[in-house]
């Protein structure tokens, strides 16, 4: 169930929280049961695969810690990694791989119809679950932290529902102590609730609004796509993906805070990045951390030759692109980011110092937005159409059908203000004064109350698909 669904807001969340407060001695058990129910609601079959895999990892983790043989320890990590990646590979990439092989065979003259078409339903959150389980085993192997004292703690780490669907990706050692020792205090509930509702507002009122414009533009055929629509669509999707993803992270962090957990931030004003290296320190921080810790560094990081370093960077981001989705466009997106990061290292980080800060930010935002076009497009043809339309303003489209309605315009404007306001020079002082304002908690709660009313209105309206009368 999604965080912005009525069943989550009106049934799951109030019910869980009421029991959570009323039954402090059984909080972990309650939270585990709720998390398993949360996941089983969406994946009633795959949850058994996930549970079986988690069980395997739990025992492998203990074996890693107890064994004195390096070979055994490595073997356990390898088995765990292979099992987890096998799970991910089968459910997420088998169909894509087979399709790619079939296309290649056809291109080479073989009979591609011999290859079966595999359509495997992708389980929700499989990418996040697999990555977190791999971090557990690798961290134990490296000596970072202790194994889970019992199966309940480990399963709670894997299936903790707030971060299950869309991250952030957390390491067991980061919440180990919180699993056994945490308190639910008023300030955490307040801050967590504000954070959750803020994220809900970003997702429902901003992301979902601009998504309509983005969807309309990306669905336009070539003859109806003009430059203004292309630029609007690109901007809309850039905002949509940010507010959607960061909104979900806010909701996850807020919910965890309400339950007594403190998670690390996952986004830090990514569109104020001055280059791609900076961007990946601000965007989906838990993923970029994972890539660095568990992929880039084991590959050698920057300890080898320059060429090896660049190769490692590109490989990491190619795989990052594929992690986002099993399609060539995601791969291309990853390649682009890999190339830009390599360019940063090669010359750009030095050369860009000549540009004013605002120019660096604007250029990075533009390039990131261009990469989002490929990320969002259904295929290379439609991505190419939109990219071409961006740079050919003299080509008219008939008839012009993309209209930015006032509410979408408002969402775009508010989104841009939220993203770029920190660039204003009074901003740091404003933030500092706001933090020290004695009425800040009341103000935030009142604002969230209003926000919640708007969100409920949008959720209710979105669920009502009525027409004038029934037409056959």
């Amino acid at each position, binding site marked *: *169930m999604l965080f912005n*669904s*009525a*069943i989550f*807001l*009106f*049934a799951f*969340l*109030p019910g869980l929280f*009421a029991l959570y407060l009323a039954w402090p001695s059984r909080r972990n058990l309650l939270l585990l049961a709720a998390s398993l129910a949360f996941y089983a*609601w*969406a994946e*009633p*079959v795959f949850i058994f695969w996930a549970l079986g895999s988690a069980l395997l990892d739990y025992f492998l983790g203990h074996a890693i810690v107890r064994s004195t043989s390096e070979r055994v320890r490595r073997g356990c990590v390898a088995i765990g990694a292979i099992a987890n990646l096998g799970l991910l590979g089968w459910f997420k990439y088998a169909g894509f791989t087979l399709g790619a092989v079939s296309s290649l065979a056809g291109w080479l003259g073989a009979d591609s119809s011999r290859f079966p078409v595999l359509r495997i339903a992708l389980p929700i959150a499989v990418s996040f679950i697999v990555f977190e389980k791999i971090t557990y085993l690798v961290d134990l192997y490296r000596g970072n932290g202790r194994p889970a004292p019992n199966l309940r703690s480990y399963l709670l780490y894997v299936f903790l529902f707030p971060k299950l669907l869309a991250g952030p990706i957390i390491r067991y050692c980061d919440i180990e102590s919180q699993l056994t020792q945490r308190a639910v205090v*008023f300030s955490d*509930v*307040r801050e967590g*609730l504000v954070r959750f*509702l803020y994220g809900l507002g970003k997702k429902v009122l901003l992301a979902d609004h601009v998504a309509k414009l983005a969807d309309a533009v990306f669905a336009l055929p070539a003859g109806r796509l003009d430059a203004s629509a292309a630029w609007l669509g690109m901007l809309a999707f850039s905002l949509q993906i940010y507010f959607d993803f960061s909104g979900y992270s806010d909701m996850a962090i807020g919910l965890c805070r309400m339950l007594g957990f403190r998670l690390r931030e996952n986004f830090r004003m990514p569109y104020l990045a001055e280059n791609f290296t900076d961007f990946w320190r601000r965007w989906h921080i838990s993923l970029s951390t994972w890539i660095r810790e568990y992929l880039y560094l084991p590959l050698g990081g920057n300890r080898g030759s320059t060429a090896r370093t660049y190769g490692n960077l590109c490989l990491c981001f190619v795989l990052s692109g594929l992690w986002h989705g099993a399609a060539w466009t995601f791969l291309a997106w990853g390649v682009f980011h890999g190339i830009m990061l390599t360019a940063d290292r090669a010359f750009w980080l030095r050369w860009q110092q000549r540009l004013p800060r605002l120019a660096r930010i604007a250029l990075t935002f533009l390039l990131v937005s261009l990469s989002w076009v490929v990320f969002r497009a259904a295929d290379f043809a439609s991505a190419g159409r939109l990219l071409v339309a961006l740079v050919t303003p003299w080509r008219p489209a*008939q*008839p*012009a*059908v993309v*209209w930015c*309605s*006032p*509410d979408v315009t*408002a969402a775009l404007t508010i989104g841009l203000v939220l993203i770029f306001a920190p660039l204003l020079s009074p901003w740091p002082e404003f933030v500092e004064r706001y933090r020290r304002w004695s009425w800040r*908690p*009341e103000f935030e*709660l*009142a604002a*969230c*109350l209003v926000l*919640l*009313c*708007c969100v*409920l*209105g*949008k*959720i*209710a*309206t*979105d*669920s*009502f*698909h*009525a*027409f*004038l*009368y*029934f*037409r*056959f």
Partner: protein
Amino acid sequence: MRRQTFLIGLIALLLAAPLPALFLLEATQPKGAWADWLLNRTLVGVTLPSQNTPFTARTWFDGSFQLSVTKWVGERFCGRELCIRLYNQVLWSLCRKSYMAAESVVTGTDGRLFEMNYLAHYAGLDLRPNRHELDLLALRLRLLHRQLAARGVPFVVVITPSKAAFYPDSIPTRYQPPATLGRPLEHERLHERLSRDGIPMVDGVALTHLAESRLPLPAFPATGTHWTPVAAGDTAEAILRACELASHQSLARLSLSPPQVTNEPNGFDDDLSRLLNLAVPLRDRYLHASIGRAEGSPRRKGQLTIVGGSFVYQLLSVWEQAEAWEQIRFFYYFGQRETYPTVTSTNVDRRRVDWEGDFCHADAVVLEINEAAFTGEHLEAFFASAQAGLAKDPIIPPPGVTFAPGAWYREESDGLRRWRWSALRTSDLTIERNGSAAAPLLVAGRIISYSLRQTLRLLASDGSELWRTQLEPGRYSAFCLRLPASSAPTSTLRFVSDAEPAPPGKKDTRPLGFALFDLVAEPDIPCSADTALPSPTGGL
């Protein structure tokens, strides 16, 4: 701290109360407007009914139970209608926009409401019917008219107006057609063809313009998508006169009292504004008039069968007020069969329509077509049903058609429509002229390909190209050709594609080229002069 606790308590109440409150209020069933909004009783609009899925192992593991419960909670929580109306009101007040009906209600420049379908047609966002499709429509109407006339049943076509085409100056700029396209002209072109063919047609568009010039208010209220019954009165009267002329029997004559202007909507007058589901309803001024029968004109005479869309309801309202017809059978979008004055409503099985009872024994058959919907799906079904229904007892036998062996697969049917797939790049068919060699022959049909993009040409027996189209997968192309008079007993047509038939797939193991649907052939002879069109002048 107390203030914070209070605010947190309010938020918690907003989240925790809707479901328990729902169960409590549904058990007690309170009355009043506030209860209606809390219990979602008065939302306007047609939705697909949701089905409650019982909890079983199968429904749990296939996810249908979860989907059903999620939908149930989302559609039933207490206060949902309140949320919808308040949210819509804020959006409307600030942005003049509504999310209702997939944002299909659009505000015009002067506050008039338009429905998206009509705007899409006017702006050319939907493909407009081309010359062949209009010719095909006219041919089908002529064929149907001839078939019914041979059975002594008058057939009248009425074209009703589209609000978008009626008030083009009110349409927002983004929905104005480009200069290269211009405004839609299908209504005028069809009128011209039907006039040439001698098919009785009532031009509701022209009549409504005339009516509006006399009435104190516009023919279409700002808050509705349909014409008012008062504005439809002239068209209703014209239909009666056309049926009277064709059937040679006197029918009711309508009379209209001086119209009054009030704030109360009449029937469909505010259908679009109600669909907005606002907290504060929009208001307009509405026309009310008492419609009766002229003194001495017959009461409740004649059995009418009428096929059409929602614009027929205003005609029915006029006729029923005047007690004009003895019985009316209304085929609503050819999917629902309603009767008047005794109101009944049944679903229509399009494959089993009682043509003999409902059409061949009627005193008049009327087909209503809105000027924005010349290629509606229900029209295709109607013509296919007519071809099947009237072919059982063909007073006018259709010409024989021979499909070249090996070039076509055998004829297929879904019980309503008939089609043949081509098997080769070149596919011939031969049409017998049935003794009408002295007359040109009209041949028409529709072509579709589901997977193959191809250029298709239609050649005459001498090799000359009669028709060409670029077939896009999933989109119909119509052809309507006039073969000149010939002494030969048959005419052969050749379809030539630039692509080989698509290879066999999983759904169909045959190589398939294109499908030919609903082929018709008809001597090009105008209908009888007895069925001259009534002149669109005067009014009630």
